[in-house]
């Protein structure tokens, strides 16, 4: 199959997709397949590793290599796979429960080590597969089957946690936003090191509309902001709103009011190593701010799997021990005649 004939259909297989009709997962599957086609990936060089959850059924619907593993352990299994076989393009599919509840530790360590994985976090703020308990991203007060009187917990903000764990790539997108999603997936794939993409995903059955305040067509333009590296942070139906800094605080302003011009608006720097501003963008919440979409942080850093390889190669070059036999005969030995 020559690269330029690859289509997203090549990444589909013959299994029937068993997510609920209307579930946001369908769209994400399509975007990933599209991104892979546009990146010109070969099926055999792609491996998709997931944990457990509705979202984690993902590998069964891909014509690539795949591994539907155990709950929360996807990042660890994907890490082992990538280190064992650094040539593979490894995608790690996970949910808000899988990644941030049971899998939280592997998640933050994978980010800390900066292993070259593309992690897609399907954030529907609910445990879907187990039929509707609150998750670590459910808002305080959220009523669910396991919180009939509302939760008394603060949720994680996934991006904040990623950055707190020294993440170098974080992006956010919306399940139904196919085109944008494909772009973001491609950016994540191109980033070397751990990339985390939070997809605001709708669970029609157990948490319907949880993101719609933000993602609904009629509001989206005013309640979200699409960030692009090097571009001013402008949003709004009329593209007349923007973000500026006041001291250490972000502020929403209207272009044309109070003498504000486009030039006053902050320009997005996703590549900036210092994460101060990116953290603030990540944390923006409606109604005070628009929710940031797109690639929020995409900075360079050393990549674990590459460093492991380089270190091994470096040592192998210098060492006299080239084989098992060399090893066992090195050091303190004696002869019996």
């Amino acid at each position, binding site marked *: 199959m020559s690269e330029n004939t690859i289509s997203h259909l090549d990444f589909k297989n013959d299994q029937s997709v068993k997510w609920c009709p209307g579930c946001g997962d369908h769209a994400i599957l399509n975007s990933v397949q599209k991104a892979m086609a546009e990146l010109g990936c070969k099926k*055999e060089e792609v491996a998709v590793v997931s944990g457990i959850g509705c979202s984690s059924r993902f590998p069964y619907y891909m014509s690539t290599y795949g591994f*539907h*593993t155990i709950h929360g352990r996807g990042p660890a299994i994907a*890490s*082992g796979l990538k280190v064992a076989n650094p*040539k593979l393009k490894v995608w790690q599919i996970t949910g808000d429960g899988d990644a941030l509840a049971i899998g939280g530790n*592997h998640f933050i360590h994978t980010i800390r080590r900066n292993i070259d994985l593309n992690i897609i976090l399907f954030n529907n703020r609910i445990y879907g597969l187990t039929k509707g308990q609150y998750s670590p991203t459910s808002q305080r007060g959220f009523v669910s089957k396991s919180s009939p009187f509302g939760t008394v917990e603060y949720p994680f903000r996934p991006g904040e946690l990623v950055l707190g764990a020294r993440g170098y790539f974080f992006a956010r997108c919306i399940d139904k936003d196919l085109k944008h999603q494909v772009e973001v997936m491609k950016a994540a794939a191109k980033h070397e090191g751990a990339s985390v993409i939070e997809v605001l995903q709708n669970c029609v059955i157990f948490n319907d509309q949880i993101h719609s305040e933000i993602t609904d067509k009629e509001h989206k333009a005013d309640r979200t902001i699409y960030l692009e590296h090097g571009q001013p942070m402008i949003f709004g139906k009329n593209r007349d709103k923007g973000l500026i800094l006041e001291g250490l605080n972000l502020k929403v302003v209207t272009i044309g009011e109070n003498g504000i011009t486009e030039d006053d608006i902050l320009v997005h720097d996703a590549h900036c190593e210092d994460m101060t501003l990116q953290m603030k963008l990540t944390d923006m919440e409606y109604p005070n701010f628009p929710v940031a979409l797109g690639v929020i942080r995409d900075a360079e850093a050393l990549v674990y799997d590459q460093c492991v390889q380089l270190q091994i190669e470096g040592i192998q070059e210098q060492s006299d021990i080239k084989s098992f036999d060399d*090893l*066992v005969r090195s050091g303190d030995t004696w*002869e019996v005649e």
Partner: protein
Amino acid sequence: MGKRSKVIEKDEVVVRFSGDSGDGMQLTGNLFSYTSAIFGNDISTFPDYPSEIRAPQGTISGVSGFQVHFGHNDVYTPGDYCDVLVAMNPAALKANAKWMKPGGVIIIDEDCFDKKHLEKAGYQTDDPIKEEKLGDYNVIKAPISTLTKESLKDMGLDTKSILRSKNMYALGLVYWMFDRPLDHTQEYIKKKFAKSELIVQANLKVLDDGYNYGSILQVVTPSFHISPADVKKGTYRNLSGNTAVAWGFLAAAEKSGLELFLGSYPITPATEILQELSRRKDLGVKVFQAEDEIAGICTAIGASFGGDLAITTTSGPGLALKGEAIGLAVMAELPLVVVNVQRGGPSTGLPTKTEQSDLMQALFGRNGESPCVVMAAGSPVNCFDYAFYAAKVAIEHMTPVILLTDGFIANGTQPWRIPDLNDWPEIKVPRVTKDMKDWHPYMRDLDKLSRYWAAPGIPGFEHPLGGLEKDYDSGDVSHNPENHQKMVNVRQEKVDRVANYIPELEILGDADSDVLVVGWGGTYGHLFTALDELRQEGHKLALAHFNYISPLPKNTYDILKSYKKIVVCELNMGQFANYLRMKFQDLRYLQFNKVQGLPFTVLELKEYFKSLMEE
């Protein structure tokens, strides 16, 4: 150095170096054993240190010991009781007095037997020898600290540094007693302290002076002669069980042509395997120090999916954490070796002590019907063999293998004849091949019932694996009831068929005896020695020692059933005995159990066996 006044001829001797954690006893013991090994004795050693990093100085809980057993014949254990004890302080004497052989030699640094230290060690009087009833022993009171200071007084060293070398004085003295050459130790000192010529000179001098002190003292100091063992020709080195495990995997990687991946989290007493393989970047080993045991095994499962020879290493509590993931490897039918170096349980238990109490956990510590292969190594050096064979079985049968060792053999050392890998069997990797017709992920080899390995990267073999039940005929997810039964059966059958590929059980000793001693894993040395000694004393006795546990060797039942009495000896409350009861219910099993964090003693085994034979 003159003629020796009295030389005691011995077949074998046990020497124990013992002192405060900071006294350098581990090094002293190691150097002595090396010298003995090079001299041509067979040896077996065991270090024994406190679980605290530095327990309070001078107290019993701070005593660090190193025992060497060496002989003119084969030696299988570090020995129960000592012929010679070096006790650098009263606590060391207190901790070890009960392990002395009647009439043995005790060397003490009398400078350290002052009131303060005696009290710290818990002595009531100022005569510990009397308190311990060691009157009939040969106690050599040497003012080692003073002599060391004397020896180095002109070297310009500070007192602390001077006293740090007093272990070399003791070592020199012991070398004299056994008439051993100093050259290996001298070489070592030169290398080790290469950074400071002064320290090198000091240590060399102290070592020498200690040796000479022996000849000065010779009227009162016994000296021993143990002639070299009649060992097989070859190149030898000293090997601990943990290093042997690491090297077994290196050998398996080379023989199979696979890259070696270790995912692990440090835990006593398994950490040294991780540390040794971390050093082996020269051989391309990918070591992933994971955030916990779960990530340790999960990275290994990922690496196995990716086509590497993947292993994970741990001890009891860590194995408990790995149960769920082992189940995934069982279900995904991926090769994986899980090394469990057993220690004293339950819970954190006695982390630095030895035990065999994780057998049931290894066999059954997972949800569902989740069979995997379980093996156990028997001695420090055969940890190499079983690590190699664990990898071979895992790869060739596409199954997780749990390899059990224990703190005793992991830390103990033995001389190891360096093998020629060409003499070792091939490891055939069951890779998919282009010509496979109608391949699907759960297509099986008809003999082994193992599936084929299609690591990502190969075009045409893209497939998803996973923990959900799969269809026998297509590998797709299946909830079909009959299919589930079929898959449950085939996973068990696959493990059972490993029995077709492993050696049969062999009887050691008198095949025609009435009593069969049964053991498994790390008790081999003690059981064999007890057997050997009893046979030399004219008793008839047989030993069946197991290294393959799940599955058992094919001839197990036939062997067991031919004995009148079977006694299963293990360092737990009867786990292997219970396992045999499940497998071969019609036989009767006696049990000899001990759960004290310690190995058996040959003495207690012999006494028990004798009582059995007399019944």
